[in-house]
């Protein structure tokens, strides 16, 4: 083995195992968090387009009237002008289902009969379970709040969920075998899926649709959905989360860089005297540098490899959640992310080690040898004298003065703690913001939902069951009179045309006050008078309108002119106004299940009234429902528990925030440990002297702990504003890149108590980092310490 090799192997060996371990662990954490961050960043890049291409998604999903065409006629449209690939016809029907739990919400599902998920177009991806092949088996879309093994009932049939799947083309709520579908409902149409040679613009898609229609008998196409519309909705849904994912990724990468640089610089800087000995033995400056870079690289490489494994393991569940939000079927850590991250971290270790070693390597041997044998040159004596006068135990006083004796080392400690605290502050802040984004974006904190009940026979839309529409004011009065009601409102939605909007706008007519259901204002105020409306930020962005503008809404029965008085945090294109403002333009309401279209798992009613109720904390939900439902039954309504659609990604990201913060805080604590051990080793002789004159192990621990208390508090105090500043800059910037603004509810997340706790978090990081060094100092044998040079 060469001389340099021997120095490297001895440098990472038994006598320096702790430093070796610290470098390895920091590299592990840096790589693990960077792999996570990198995976998030990469997955944020055009996730819909990537997944759509992978599934060979349908440019056009058409529903063809089964009463007007045969399956053969539908299949023949595959040769329409411009079609390059087609799949179908698949029998399609609407099936009303209800969950197995009492008071669960009824849903109308668009169910497609497909024998298998593959095909030329719209290769549906199974994300859980298997495909439905047997009788009474069903596969539900990932967006449904159902799990594999759950059962749902439709009329007298119990269906078992055997799988969950994702169609990027959003072609169905659920799939069964064609035979099962035929047993459940009458086939109302055939689904045909097409890909075209030119499908990039709305004009091209309009021409494509026209070509397919032309290949069918007149009025045979019931509906058709362009992929451009699906894409817009998917991007809107994910847009709010993208900034947070990017922020987490950047945070993980940035903190890794800072902490690795800190630890490596500290490690090499501590070895100056050893470097002096090597030079005295004849090592050239170049050999010294190579030896110390190697000494840092060896454990870092081992840690980095372990970090790749850990990062990939951690990324699997996280990306599984991310793909739900992006609507992508499968996300994985790209191999090149691993390679780049490992290369980057090892390059960083080598680079910082090289810079620090270069400085040491240029020292003359005499100067290098003198380091550690001479006094500290008088630095910090004033502090020692000052602290000596404080009414604290002497051992504590000695510790408190210690940072002033080695100010550069204290700065390294301070930096490690400040980095860790900043990371924790930022992670806590962004995690809280994220939870609030979901709360504000969903407007879904109601405890109960009221809507028409599920029909009891196979055909979901029996006109004979329709009764006269219930008077919303009377329904609200009934709900309001119910003991335990805290707040309630009714709403009716209708797609309407709006001046300046290319697409139809979801207009929500409201009876009562709805703002409590987490409608957070970005600017302006909630509407309060007839003729006023509140608009979604997504709508204002899409149309270029602003608060104060007046717009005209055209519905089924007429027009309404409203003045936008406020902007609500909401990425969709929606507008809210009082029923008295827009009701006339909407026309008569539908009144029963016939009017309920597939509105997703939340059971949102379209063009019929739904009601949202908050009950007091002390009220029992079941008892409340038992008391209210008989009264609602008289007006053709039923109250259900609101199946709050818990967003799995939010839980995952909060978990990630906790994980990243913990990893970075642990890395910061390792930085403290590393720096403190270096310092204690440097002054082990002094430690021996103090123990020889009577310093007990307890006093030694107190002294070492005291040496980091001030730095810990200062680091905490410095790190908290840094973390807050990063949060305050990152959040609006990232939200801006996603085309939205954020209300104070989402941005103002730091409360005084939280900030105080975070400042003391810096102290905790310091104390945790000081635990091992203080224990080592307490255990070191006095006689051995006294013999140490």
């Amino acid at each position, binding site marked *: 083995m060469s001389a340099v090799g021997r120095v490297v192997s001895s440098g990472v060996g038994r006598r320096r195992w702790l430093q070796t371990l610290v470098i390895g662990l920091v590299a592990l954490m840096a790589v693990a968090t960077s792999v996570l961050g990198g995976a998030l960043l990469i997955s944020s890049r055009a996730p819909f387009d990537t997944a759509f291409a992978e599934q060979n998604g349908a440019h056009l999903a058409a529903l063809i009237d089964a009463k007007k065409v045969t399956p053969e006629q539908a299949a023949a449209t595959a040769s329409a002008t411009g079609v390059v690939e087609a799949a179908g016809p698949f029998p399609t029907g609407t099936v009303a289902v209800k969950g197995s739990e009492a008071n669960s919400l009824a849903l109308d599902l668009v169910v497609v009969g497909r024998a298998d998920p593959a095909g030329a177009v719209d290769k549906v991806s199974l994300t859980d379970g298997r495909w439905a092949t047997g009788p009474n088996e069903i596969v539900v879309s990932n967006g449904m709040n159902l799990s594999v093994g759950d059962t749902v009932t439709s009329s007298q049939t119990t269906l078992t969920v055997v799988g969950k799947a994702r169609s990027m083309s959003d072609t169905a709520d659920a799939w069964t075998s064609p035979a099962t579908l035929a047993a459940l409902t009458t086939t109302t149409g055939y689904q045909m899926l097409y890909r075209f040679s030119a499908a990039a613009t709305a004009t091209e898609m309009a021409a494509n649709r026209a070509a397919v229609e032309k290949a069918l008998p007149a009025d045979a196409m019931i509906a058709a959905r362009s992929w451009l519309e699906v894409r817009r909705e998917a991007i809107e849904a994910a847009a709010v989360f993208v900034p947070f994912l990017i922020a987490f990724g950047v945070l993980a990468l940035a903190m890794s860089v800072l902490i690795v640089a800190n630890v490596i610089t500290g490690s090499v800087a501590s070895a100056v005297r050893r470097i002096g000995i090597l030079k005295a033995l004849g090592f050239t400056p170049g050999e010294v540098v190579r030896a110390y870079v190697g000494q840092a690289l060896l454990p870092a490489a081992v840690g980095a490899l372990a970090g790749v494994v850990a990062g990939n393991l951690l990324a699997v569940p996280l990306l599984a959640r991310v793909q739900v939000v992006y609507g992508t079927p499968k996300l994985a850590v790209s191999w090149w992310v691993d390679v780049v991250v490992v290369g980057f971290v090892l390059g960083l270790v080598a680079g910082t080690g090289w810079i620090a070693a270069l400085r040491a390597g240029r020292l003359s041997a005499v100067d290098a040898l003198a380091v550690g044998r001479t*006094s*500290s040159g*008088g630095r*910090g*004596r004033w502090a*020692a*004298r000052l602290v*000596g*006068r404080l*009414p604290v*135990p*002497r*051992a504590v006083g000695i510790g408190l*003065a210690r940072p002033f*004796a080695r100010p550069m080392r204290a700065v390294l400690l301070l930096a490690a703690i400040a980095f860790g605290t900043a990371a924790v502050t930022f992670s806590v802040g962004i995690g809280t913001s994220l939870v609030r984004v979901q709360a504000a974006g969903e407007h879904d904190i109601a405890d109960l939902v009221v809507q028409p009940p599920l029909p009891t026979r196979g055909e979901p839309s029996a006109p004979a069951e329709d009764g006269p529409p219930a008077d919303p004011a009377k329904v609200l009065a009934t709900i309001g009179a119910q003991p335990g009601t805290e707040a309630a409102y009714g709403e009716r939605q209708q797609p309407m045309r709006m001046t300046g909007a290319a697409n139809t706008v979801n207009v929500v007519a409201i009876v009562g006050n709805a703002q409590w259901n987490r409608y957070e204002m970005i600017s302006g105020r909630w509407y309060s008078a007839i003729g006023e409306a509140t608009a979604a930020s997504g709508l204002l962005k899409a149309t270029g309108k602003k608060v104060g503008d007046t717009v005209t809404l055209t519905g089924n029965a007429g027009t309404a002119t409203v003045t936008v008085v406020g902007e609500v945090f909401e990425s969709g294109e929606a507008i809210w106004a009082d029923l008295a403002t827009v009701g006339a333009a909407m026309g008569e309401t539908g009144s029963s299940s016939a009017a309920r279209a597939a509105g997703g798992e939340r059971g949102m009613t379209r063009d019929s009234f739904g009601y949202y109720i908050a009950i007091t904390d002390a009220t029992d939900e079941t008892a409340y429902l038992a008391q209210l439902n008989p009264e609602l039954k008289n007006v053709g309504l039923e109250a259900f528990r609101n199946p709050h659609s818990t967003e799995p990604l939010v839980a995952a990201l909060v978990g990630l925030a906790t994980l990243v913060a913990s990893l970075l805080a642990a890395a910061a604590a390792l930085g403290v440990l590393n720096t403190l051990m270096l310092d204690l080793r440097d002054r082990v*002789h*002094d430690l*021996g*002297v*103090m*123990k*020889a*004159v*009577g*310093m*007990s*192990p*307890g*006093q030694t621990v107190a002294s070492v702990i005291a040496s980091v208390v001030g730095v810990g508090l200062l680091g905490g105090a410095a790190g908290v504003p840094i973390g807050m500043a990063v949060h305050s800059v990152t959040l609006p910037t990232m939200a801006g890149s996603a085309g939205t603004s954020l209300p104070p509810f989402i941005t103002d997340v730091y409360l005084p108590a939280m900030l105080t706790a975070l400042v003391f978090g810096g102290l905790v990081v310091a104390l945790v980092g000081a635990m091992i060094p203080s224990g080592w100092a*307490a*255990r070191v*044998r*006095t*006689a051995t310490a*006294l013999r140490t040079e």
Partner: protein
Amino acid sequence: MSETLIELREVTRQYDEGPPALRDLTLTVNRGESVAILGPSGSGKSTLLNLIAGLDRPTSGTVTVAGTRVHTLGEAAAARYRRAHIGMVFQFFNLLDDLTVQDNVMLPAQLSGVRGGEARSRAERLLTTLGIARHADAYPGRLSGGERQRVAVARALINEPALLLADEPTGALDTASGVDVQNLIKELHAGGQTILMVTHDLALAEACATRTVHLVDGQVSMDTLTGAPS
């Protein structure tokens, strides 16, 4: 009859490698004695001192000092024992560079829980007695070797220990400073202080010791009462 202060019975100290540093050594020292431990390098002198100071533990045998069974003490108890009974003076002084002379001297008292005012008062008295009061606010690095050793002696005496242990107290000093420290030790002994010193310096032993113990290969080869110091 004189009271026994130190009693080592059949003490062996075996390190990981090589022959034992001490082998079945038995030794007693009475209060008021001034004992010089002599011997060549590797004879076990420093090991003996460390065992008596509670800095090390014997592999076998017992060490009793002022009624304390030192060989049974844990780290914390050993620290308390040193504060109460032992003052130590080292060849290379072992003063803390970042503390003033006065702060160095006060340190053992403060670690014992003596209040700041009382510790300061004791330190001032000792520094005056030892003739270095003018250096109270200076840092050790600015003092001569002899002065530093006087500071070390002051630090060793601040808790009024029953036993003063000195490890080559003149080994790092020039001749004049050595004589200075030699006289100081004589004065301390004359004042009734029990002293046990390890030294190569025969002149120091002759001048200060009432008894000399020669160690060879970890065993007592000669134990001689020399009477009053010259």
